[in-house]
């Protein structure tokens, strides 16, 4: 198991998960969000080839009101 941060919350997940598998583990099943790892954007097309590592900081963002 490795420790990562998801939207500021610490989580323990299995090693060698790609983003696709990570999202499934975290129950992110709906569409309409975008994701960054360590403040770098990861496009949907790269989810399957991006492996999560110990200490990674994941941000998952969705639309909200804004000015």
């Amino acid at each position, binding site marked *: 198991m490795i420790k990562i941060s998801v*939207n*500021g919350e610490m989580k323990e997940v299995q090693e060698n998960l790609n983003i696709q598998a990570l999202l499934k583990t*975290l*129950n*992110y*099943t*709906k*569409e*309409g*969000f*975008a*994701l*960054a790892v360590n*403040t*770098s*954007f990861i*496009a*949907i097309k790269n989810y399957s080839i991006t492996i999560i590592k110990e200490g990674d900081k994941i*941000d*998952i*963002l*969705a*639309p*909200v*009101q*804004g*000015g």
Partner: protein
Amino acid sequence: MWEIGGKKLNSRLLIGSALYPSPANMEEAIKVSGSQIVTVALRRQSAGEGSGGNFWKIIKSLGIEVLPNTAGCHSAKEAVTTAQMAREVFGTNWIKLEVIGDQYNLQPDPFETVKSAEILIKEGFEVFPYTTDDLVVAKRLADVGCKIIMPWGSMIGSGKGLMNKDNLIAIRKQFPELKLIIDAGIGKPSDATQAMELGYDGVLLNSAIALAQDPIKMADAFRLAIESGRLGYQAGVMQKREFASPSTPTVGTPFWHQFD
């Protein structure tokens, strides 16, 4: 009709989607405002919430242009990443670039704003940069390829109107070819009219409508104010004079007499 970011639009009001008393009120206010560009944002989402919930459905149903912002970013790196994420979620290359340099007055950081604008333009974004009324910063933004510049009227959410008209006039004079939008600080409809009378191409506001006692009525007031200011600008305002000049004809004045 006017053109901004490759789109031909009628309305020169860009409206925010935050701070309304309710989603229904927001929807109605946006419709009544006649605005064809609405600003939105991205924030952390918990599992199971699903694509911003009802909010995003309402915005999509309006069928108008969406302008995502990078609100809350404090560095070029954060702003660029947020813009990239917004492009994927909202399906637009438009980005309202906000890089905050001071938490007290939410003043934009000119250095990080210019830096991120340059990167984003190279990546194919249409950048709408929020900046101060500093002419040199506007020049730097134009130098890196910005076709749109959005100087503040005054601090975000302050409602203080146009703090420094002389600077805004200077920017308009220096950049006749750029699209200039007053972004932030508008409090009342006459502030927006003044911005338009200065020759600005549009006004972006949120709090002034959303925090009004009746946001829907205020949306209508801003629609009219912006149209009025634009017409006034096009019509050409008369020159100010240092002396009085009667508008009623003096020929045939009754009881006329020569002053001693």
